């Protein structure tokens, strides 16, 4: 272990023993290539076994370790210590209730995800024996980026609208609903529109765009939300000006 050290101010809260959340400082010897998660793991193993947080893959794909690092939503496994100066402040993801320490309650997101029907509603049912649906690379490209969402919920922590109006469906759920709408094999858009184009769906978004900025997978939920708005506007005009087309 090198002589380099890093100081972490970590938010601690145990509902059984603490009346209120508080910060605890840890001084951690670290290596040049370490991420914040490595420092937390060092704390857990060597300094304080009571610290609780979620993590697993250490390669930015399981989505477990989202937290606020110096007030920005980040994956702890992809936040390099070398990119920070001074004391690093580590807190649970904003806008979610704290279950304990850095662990948040994510029931809200999990329930919203199910509401957008994030599964294929086939345009034309096809028997397995008939082989695969044909989908050209160009058709794949239309929705591919939205499939890359790892459900880490950094976008919810970054979204000011979600902070104000918890009923808002939120960036990831809308982007994932949109992902299925854009899939050439899918015919379920009408069924999803009820949620996606509702007041508490895409129209709640005030287009701050913070969701797309913080996404560790470079998904563009803000773009998805605007596309949903455009489609729902077109729907509205067709319904009101050319109702025979929407029958």
């Amino acid at each position, binding site marked *: 272990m090198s002589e380099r050290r890093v100081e972490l101010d970590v938010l601690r809260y*145990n*509902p*059984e*023993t603490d009346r209120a959340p508080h910060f605890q400082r840890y001084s951690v010897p670290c290596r040049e*290539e370490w991420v914040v998660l490595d420092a937390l793991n060092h704390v*857990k*193993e*060597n300094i*304080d*076994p*009571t*610290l*609780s*947080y*979620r993590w*697993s*893959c*250490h*390669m*930015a*794909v*399981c*989505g*477990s370790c989202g937290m606020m690092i110096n007030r920005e939503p980040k994956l702890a496994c*992809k936040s*390099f210590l070398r990119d920070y100066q001074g004391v690093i402040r580590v807190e649970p993801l904003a806008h979610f209730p704290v*279950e*304990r*320490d850095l*662990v948040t*309650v*994510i029931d809200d997101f*999990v329930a919203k*995800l*199910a509401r957008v*029907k*994030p*599964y*294929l509603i*086939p345009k034309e049912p*096809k028997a*397995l024996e008939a*082989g*695969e*649906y*044909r*989908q*050209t*690379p160009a*058709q*794949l490209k239309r*929705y*591919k980026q939205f*499939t*890359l969402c*790892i*459900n880490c919920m950094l976008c919810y922590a970054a979204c000011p609208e979600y902070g104000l109006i918890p009923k808002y469906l939120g960036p990831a759920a809308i982007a994932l609903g949109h992902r*299925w709408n854009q899939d050439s*094999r*899918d015919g379920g858009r009408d069924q999803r529109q009820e949620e996606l184009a509702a007041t508490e769906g895409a129209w709640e978004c005030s287009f701050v765009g913070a969701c797309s900025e913080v996404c560790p997978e470079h998904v563009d939920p803000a773009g998805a939300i605007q596309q949903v708005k455009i489609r729902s506007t077109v729907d509205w005009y067709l319904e009101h000006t050319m109702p025979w087309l929407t029958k």
Partner: protein
Amino acid sequence: METTTSDIAIIGAGGAGLRAAIAIAQTDPRLRIALISKVYPMRSHTCAAEGGAAGVIKPDDSLEHHFNDTVGGGDWLCDQDAVDYLVQEAPKELLQLEHWGCPWSREPDGSVAVRPFGGMKKQRTWFAADKSGFHILHTLFQTSLQFPSIERFDEFYATELLVDDGGCQGLTAIEMRSGQIRQFRARAVIVAGGGAGRMFPFTTNGAIKTGDGMALAYRAGVPLKDMEFVQYHPTGLPSTGTLLTEACRGEGGVLLNKHGRRFLQDYGMGPETPLGKPVLKTMELGPRDRVSQAFWHEQKKGNMVPTEWGDAMLLDMRHLGEKTINERLPLVRDMSISYMGVDPVSDPVPVRPVVHYMMGGIDTDIRAATPLAGLYAAGECACVSINGANRLGSNSLTELLVFGRRAALSAMEHLASGRAQGNGQAIDARAEEARGRVRALFQRSGGGETIAGLRREMMHTLEQHAGIYRSGEGLTEACTTLAALRRRYANIELHDKTNVYNTDLLQALELGSMLDCAEAVAVSALERKESRGAHQRLDFVERDDARFLRHSLAHHRGGDAPRIDYRDVVITKSQPGVRDYSGGHA
């Protein structure tokens, strides 16, 4: 105690568990399914699989080719009836995922694309860029949301299986959010708890892969099969162990020693193939065991590149060009830059073999059934065995689909058979005892052993003595040390005695699982006095079919070392032969 009653309980909500749950829900929507997992389904380690899933689909390929590659790749330790079933079902399962919307990579005409993989004679690996496991997991998870009969219990850690009347009748689990222990009653249980790579210090496996599912079944009297076979993936980043998929080589990447020589040609995998024109089943597309073993020999000769994390070889992908790397291997590029500071477009990436996969696991048959009535297992935690002594890359994603579904069908057949459900009061009593065992952990004090300390010693022991090459002397020492660690485990003390999301408790239980699995690995390895696939003995260098063309079975014996016995391998049409990766095949 709070009790949840369902028809079938599934432990683990990764690829195998989700596939099983969907199969049950589709076949009989009246059956109540409890899907219990220590993490939210999308956190399961299936998400980290990169390269793809094998299944015959192209006209130049055949089921027979897939069968032969798998059986030879496994050094003839695979059960051939099970491999037959795997290769037959594979294309259907991969197509089923396509019908559920998996974003498989495509050919220009819209058909599904396949890529080359190690040890495979034909191109048959379906892929979704280099995030195949991630897309399979999310497709399954999102698809599962449409079935109301699947009730999820996310962040519930299973502690024991409940056995009565000779059959599995449910389990106990800790709800992480409250710390409360709950009883789950079910007429059949499917274990899909994943592998145990975290027993080793240097692994591609996520933190959650601690052998819990294996340990649950093992302690309930089900043997662990072929545990001595631990797969090293040749190409992990030396700093973190992060996996760089075999598809790097499938796409044409090559492995170099410090002199710039493609050294695999010196280890029976030559002659050298033209740069950028990979030839199937030879050189860099040899099987993982052989490539990792070649690294070990080169390291002994001093031909490797020293790095601050130890010796490494070089994975050179520069000749693929930026466009191909971005299209086919975007995650590989991102991780090489992030975690190693090396851009594969402009520089070779240092890599070294890293623990990746357990070929061994819960003893199951071709129906995914364990010897315990009502208990089934699938995925990495199970050993059917289709992987034998060495798994071929891209067979494991296929395996968890094929046998996840198979476990579901078998569990439903078990329900239909109307077997006795055990004595309710007796099961309640067992559940109470299980709760008592967890609570007892909170009472212990003054033992002086720490979770982190014991874990480090376990990891060090396995790395030292149960790695790519092993010896009788080293394994004997490993067995002694692991037995002592299991005794010392009785003296660990929790620092955290609260209930809500207690990860100190969780890690203590996970360590208990890993220690049981680790001892099964070491004892099975010591007893197998031959070299086969991923199990290489310096003191028994040859394969010995007369004595060891058999599966090892480790039986749990409480605090004592496991008892090992053996069962013959099922051979239907391929007699053991020579594994030839010299390029004559392609």
